[in-house]
């Protein structure tokens, strides 16, 4: 278990981010993923510190505020054999980093992108972030009057191929979502409501533990069956939905919403809008498109990591240079 753990957290006791780190550790461990095969990426913020607190045996790159997507893109292209997990905050993603977020989703880069969403800027002491709901109140009494960005709706709109929302306090669901994300090839965008106990966990906040518990609207129970567990999944047709993941794993969603089909984009958008209109937030795997071409396929890269290709494969021979010189004469 040791290489799955990270260094001791320096985040506040009770911070949702710590609970997410715990889930990451468990999900990766239970999926049997060697930390040495993982790269961890993040921006700046309390949330972006998290990668230091999980998977200590993995390489990590804590970049600059809001720009984790570009670092992640470069790193994944350089070595497509690594499993990339990015951690960001709602400010890091929704404000300064929204441009890079948008383009990451468009590219469908293979990466698990976790937004640890607390509706505020933790590290700079509690200002509103762009995911704060209209009318939600800061501890100081300031009321947010701008509409929130729904990162899930945005991600689906932009072409992300796996979009989920969960709650740091829901161990079971978050673990299942993380495992399913690990089986996905392409961008897996996870918006995880993660209360900030220091600045945004009071009455009037819509990202507090109490609010999240009361307004969490699970789309259904999630069962994740990894490809290495060869069991026949039994499910009740009509009330469940089975999604076959890229690597052969199976994601079983026991529906509460009778009609819900997570492979239907329009359906996913409908759910997001309807729940948000009711002041609730839908959780679970909201949208999944298991076979969408990812960025590595699009770039038509050789199978080996570009980073370590031998000289003879990256430097054309003298004859090529001579040929070019001849053309330039």
């Amino acid at each position, binding site marked *: 278990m040791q290489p799955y753990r990270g*260094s001791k957290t*320096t985040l506040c006791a009770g911070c949702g981010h710590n609970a997410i780190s715990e889930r990451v550790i468990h999900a990766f461990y239970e999926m049997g993923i060697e*930390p*040495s*095969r993982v*790269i*961890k*990426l993040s921006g700046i913020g309390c949330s972006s510190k998290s*990668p*230091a607190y999980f998977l*200590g*045996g*993995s*390489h*990590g*790159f*804590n*970049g*600059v505020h809001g*720009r984790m*997507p*570009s*670092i*992640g*893109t*470069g*790193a*994944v*292209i*350089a*070595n497509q*054999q*690594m499993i990339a997990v990015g951690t960001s905050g709602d400010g890091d993603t929704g404000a300064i980093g929204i*441009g*890079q977020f*948008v*383009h990451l989703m468009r590219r469908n880069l293979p990466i698990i992108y976790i937004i640890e969403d607390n509706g505020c800027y933790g590290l700079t002491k509690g200002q509103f972030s762009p995911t704060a709901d209209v009318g939600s109140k800061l501890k100081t009494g300031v009321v947010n009057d701008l509409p929130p960005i729904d990162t899930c709706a945005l991600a689906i709109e932009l072409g992300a191929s796996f979009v989920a929302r969960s709650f740091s306090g829901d161990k079971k669901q978050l673990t299942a979502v993380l495992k399913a994300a690990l089986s996905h090839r392409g961008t897996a965008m996870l918006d995880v409501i993660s209360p900030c106990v220091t600045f945004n966990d009071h009455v009037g906040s819509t990202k507090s533990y109490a609010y999240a518990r009361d307004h969490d609207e699970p789309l259904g129970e999630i069962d994740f069956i990894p490809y290495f567990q060869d069991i026949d999944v039994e499910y009740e047709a009509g009330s469940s939905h089975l999604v076959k993941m890229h690597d052969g794993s199976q994601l079983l969603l026991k529906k509460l919403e009778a009609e819900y089909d997570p492979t239907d984009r329009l359906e996913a958008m409908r759910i997001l809008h309807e729940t948000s209109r009711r002041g609730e937030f839908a959780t679970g795997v909201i949208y999944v498109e298991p076979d969408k071409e990812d960025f590595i396929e699009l*770039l*038509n*890269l*050789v*199978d080996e*990591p*570009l*980073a*370590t*290709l031998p*000289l003879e*494969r*990256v*430097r*054309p021979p*003298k004859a*090529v*240079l*001579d040929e*070019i*010189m001849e053309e*330039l*004469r």
Partner: protein
Amino acid sequence: MSPTGVAVQDAAASQPARQIVNDFNIQVATVNGSGSQTANMVLFRSIFQMGIPVSGKNLFPSNIAGLPTWYTIRTSKDGYVARKREIDVLVAMNNETARDDVMGLEPGATVVYDEPMQLAALRDDLIFYPVPFDKIVAQVCPDAKLRRLVRNMIYDGVLARLFDIDMAQVETALNKQLGRKVKALALNQAAMKGGYDYATEHLTKQDPFVLESMGGSGDKILIDGNAAGALGSLMAGVTVVAWYPITPSSSLCETLIDYLRKYRIDKETGKATFAVVQAEDEVAAIGMTLGAGWAGARAMTSTSGPGISLMAEFTGLGYYAEVPAVIFDVQRVGPSTGLPTRTAQGDILSTALLSHGDTKHLLLLPSSMAECYSMAIEAFDLAERFQTPVFVMSDLDLGMNAWVSEPFECPTEPPDRGKLLDAETLKRLGEWGRYRDVDGDGIAYRSLPGDGMPAYFCRGSGHDGDAGYSERADDYENNLNRLARKFETARSVVPGPVTEREGDGKVGVLAYGSTHWAVVESCDQLAREAALAPRYLRLRAFPFTDELTAFIDRCDRVYVVEQNRDAQMLSLMRMEMSPERIAKLRSVLHYGGLPIDARSITDAILAGEGHALAPANGDLKT
């Protein structure tokens, strides 16, 4: 003075007494988007093929079509390739600028012009050749829709006749320029011939200008600095390219993409051994470059001033977290959007110190096509060796103009991948820390994701020798001091300066980049006009090496010549030098957006040395 050009012709139709061979300046004034580029390149290439030293400067507006453009071709038997201010031959094709263009000429200059503009009425001290372009094009190109495209080719024919360029050379050049476009080739040939025939029948030579073959171009090549940089990157084995389009750097990545697609697709699998990403902006481009560099790829981006400004924060991360990256800065005129299609050396200071906190970066300063190529290769080696961003400081003049060059040499050394941790090193070290200076040169060993070596957490926040988070003052200081040590190590590894002229040391000249060519010519002017013997050292990198201080010590006064307002390179020197040395430094600055010319430098140095200035024609002997 006669109102029609033809009459002027008749009036002055006598054979000129004096001949000027292979030493004059032709300027073609057109409208951009009018297809003049092909005509200009064919002319340029013909002269190149004749083995005459030639340089071309494209002065173009920042739009796509419809604004004035000037292309200047300088021939110089003595090999001077810097911009020359005086225009000897004007080809006036643009009604909008023709009047100003003609009024700005020195007496005795020659004008080839589109007849309806009636320019000959403007002055009586010039030689005018009117050419009815529309009539000629109507005869040679039956399809009215295509006439606009080939019309400019007529002046190539006229000039070929006037200056005695072998038509076979022009045909070869046209073939080379148009390649396999058979129909276009035929039309252009006809237009060219139309111009040639017209000149034969209707124009009597009165100007003194002649082009004579100097034995052919041998194995020399014609290339621009962006293509040279692209080739260097290709041969360096670049694997990840992230970029965002901007003039004047775009063609570097675009040319590179062409080469990569042609030469870097795996034969067996048909798959790419490279990735190119057109990023959403320059912040993302440098972020991707750093992410790839951290993961072990040879990664690069290319941009110009506005992009450099956007890259500031990330560059600091690269410096402090020690991540290799190669950044080409093809400089243009700033500040802000500035003059996007004009040249400058205006990013030196801000790039050397790019980002907040104590940051310093390695800069390479190419002067020639050969160096745009070789320094691209060196940049990748230096970036990995020093685990840091390296900037190749080109400019629009180098990057986008065609230059004659010796062919490039294939690198013989394998790439320098720097200190990568491996099992053997790990055993030798016993214990590894990502930022521990075990060799005393400031450079630590790094591991890569997936290489089986111990992992580390790379970060731009405070860290200790083991890459652990730290806010301790001693950790911070140790780290910054080590980075300074690393920079010192680089001093003896970066390309050293080149002594271009020995001189007597009374007058020293320092320059770099594209400024070089004007300085070479200026040194000759100073010798000829004022019997000065300047000693000239050409800088090739920042940090400065010991040769620079030695040079200053051996000179009485040193003129630092550069293309910016604020004496940026001199300011960098000031940061490092003793007051005695600084006291010797003077500035020669040029920043109008046009490439620097020798006359400006010569005049400034003469003034600085207390000599009387040469008159505009440059013939003064002191």
